[in-house]
């Protein structure tokens, strides 16, 4: 069975000319059938752009300069806007951060749901309505039949995000791209939405690419995690291993900088500096100016992803920071 999503060598540039700065640089990853891939990184790492590139929603001057995107074995990059439109909504669903931007404020939620269903599936009005009501009750909207006539502004933020989830799953997509679906919500509502996303994914056998900067959300529902830094993969691997024993110093720094509720420390470990700006990527490993383990090799040569246990990390010296001695340079 081919993966639900396969991204190969994705490169996105800012502008179309030859020397245009790369925002996403040779990014490759798969999302398996029924799998939840969490994609994390700081703002500007390129995680949302990856999602937009897959959905074919890159706005100029952003330009997909290279790579292949396949959904269930079918290539979808380079498709015409019309062809892409039938993919979005039908086989690829999308959930964005702010539910108010995904919903049309002038149409009732029932209309939006039935319209989506009838655009993509051969159904008459009555059965589309039935399906919409069933979807609403599945995502936990109380009194779904009455809510069909409600406008988005009449619903709370959490309810709106539930409706957006219903829309994303309306036509049984094989892949759902969820870009910061819980960031705008309160923690108690956030837990509801994360649980719902995981349940919908499991019950309907859809794969999810979950883009977020919240490690807690990732820990809770991702099967695998991809860590992005400066438009490239820093590390990718099973969530269990990657969160417990991150191999890349950037992932280690990210995990360490989260305040721990069980252990109060005076000062939090922090990664110094900030991510390079677009076009301002340093030579060698993009992370080397902020890395405490950087050596001459890191400054000169860019590391590729190499296996480290069950993870892949783009680092010349992946692994446990405590076992590292600055004098001992790489063996290979």
């Amino acid at each position: 069975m081919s993966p639900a999503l396969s991204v190969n060598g994705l490169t996105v540039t800012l502008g179309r000319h030859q020397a245009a700065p790369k925002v996403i640089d040779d990014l490759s990853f798969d999302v398996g059938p029924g799998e939840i891939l969490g994609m994390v990184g700081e703002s500007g790492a390129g995680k949302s752009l990856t999602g937009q590139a897959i959905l074919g929603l890159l706005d100029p001057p952003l330009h997909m300069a290279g790579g292949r995107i396949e959904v269930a074995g079918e290539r979808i990059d380079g498709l015409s806007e019309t062809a892409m439109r039938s993919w979005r909504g039908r086989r690829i669903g999308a959930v964005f951060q702010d539910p108010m931007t995904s919903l049309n404020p002038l149409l009732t939620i029932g209309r939006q749901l039935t319209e989506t269903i009838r655009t993509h599936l051969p159904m008459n009005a009555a059965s589309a309505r039935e399906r919409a009501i069933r979807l609403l009750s599945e995502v936990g909207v109380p009194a779904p039949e009455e809510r069909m006539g409600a406008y988005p502004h009449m619903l709370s933020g959490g309810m709106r995000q539930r409706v957006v989830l219903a829309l994303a799953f309306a036509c049984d997509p094989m892949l759902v791209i969820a870009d910061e679906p819980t960031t705008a919500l309160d923690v108690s509502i956030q837990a509801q939405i994360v649980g719902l996303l995981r349940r919908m994914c499991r019950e309907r056998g859809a794969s999810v690419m979950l883009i977020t900067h919240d490690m807690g959300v990732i820990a809770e529902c991702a099967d695998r995690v991809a860590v992005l830094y400066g438009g490239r993969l820093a590390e990718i691997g099973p969530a269990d291993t990657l969160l417990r024993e991150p191999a890349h110093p950037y992932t280690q720094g990210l995990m360490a900088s989260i305040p721990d509720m069980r252990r109060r420390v005076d000062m939090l470990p922090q990664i110094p500096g900030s991510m390079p700006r677009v076009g301002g990527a340093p030579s060698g490993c993009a992370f080397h100016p902020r890395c405490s383990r950087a050596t001459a090799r890191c400054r000169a040569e860019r590391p590729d992803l190499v296996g480290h246990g069950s993870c892949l990390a783009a680092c010349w010296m992946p692994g446990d920071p405590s076992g590292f001695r600055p004098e001992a340079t790489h063996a290979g």
Partner: protein
Amino acid sequence: MQDDVLLAVNNLTVRFDVSAPALKRLITRSPRRFVHAVEDVSFTVPRRSVFALVGESGCGKSTLARAVVGVERPTSGHVSLAGRRVSGFTTRAAERTWRSDVQMIFQDPQSSLNPRWRVGRSVAEPLRTHRMVAGRAEAVERVGALLEAVGLSSEDARRFPHQFSGGQRQRIAIARALSTRPALVVCDEPTSALDVSVQAQILNLMRRLQREFGLTYLLITHNFAVVAHMADHVGVMYLGRLVEQGPADVLLADPKHPYTRLLLDTVPDPARRGRAREPMKGEAPSPINPPVGCAFQQRCPLATARCAHERPVLRSAGRTAVACHAFEERRLPPWRTSIQPDLQSAEGSR
């Protein structure tokens, strides 16, 4: 230290009138309507400590913060800073002294800095307003020192906000807040818009500045991890009222209000992977017509008939105070013991 109270909030109530216009009210015979943003809240903050107000959006924590800095007029009750009442100043000078004593940092530094002003001008603005500098040269010098104190360079004063990252902009906002040498800094979700790595930098900066300048923080947040890291005292708000308050170590180790417990349970935690969070059911009721009885009853697993008609009051429960019938009636199950925050051990190091 116990006696040295910097900020005292006494029975503070803030309501907003959202009634229809008088004539329409008369015709439709509808009553006046009020948003009960803050209802009868009292707490004190000792000098050089951190008081965290926690709650979900709409619980009134930001309104409370605005009342503390004097932007919002209390409907009843009052706020006092170092024994002086906020509001009702008799002279401009008295008001000005108070204003320079309280500063605020907001969630989004993008919107709290003027995009058309050079950073130096923004940072110097409070100094000029409060006439704390004699001339231009002194202002430039002070601004440079402030920017260096927050980890930027004095040359950055000549740049514009858009030339900085989100974390750096928050540093600029902090520099501006510190310019008047305030005693109290009210921080409204200071790190919510930032990435975790940047959040760690800002939290560390806030702690260092607290020591250097002897600051007191009123920290408004919904992030319990930040609370556990920063706060000495915690107040949990629900629908305008404090439902639990007390020292951070005690409250987080043994929360007694069902709402606090559910909030703590919903905190996503990378260290507890694969745990099924018990999502809190339902949503907070409207503050326009708050329910009779306990505001949390609809979402509470322990609610009884008494909770539906009698509002619990904040009562002492050991070192904390809690407003809950279930606790008073000893119906509260013991709090999970396996993952208790180990806060006491680190307390000595502070």
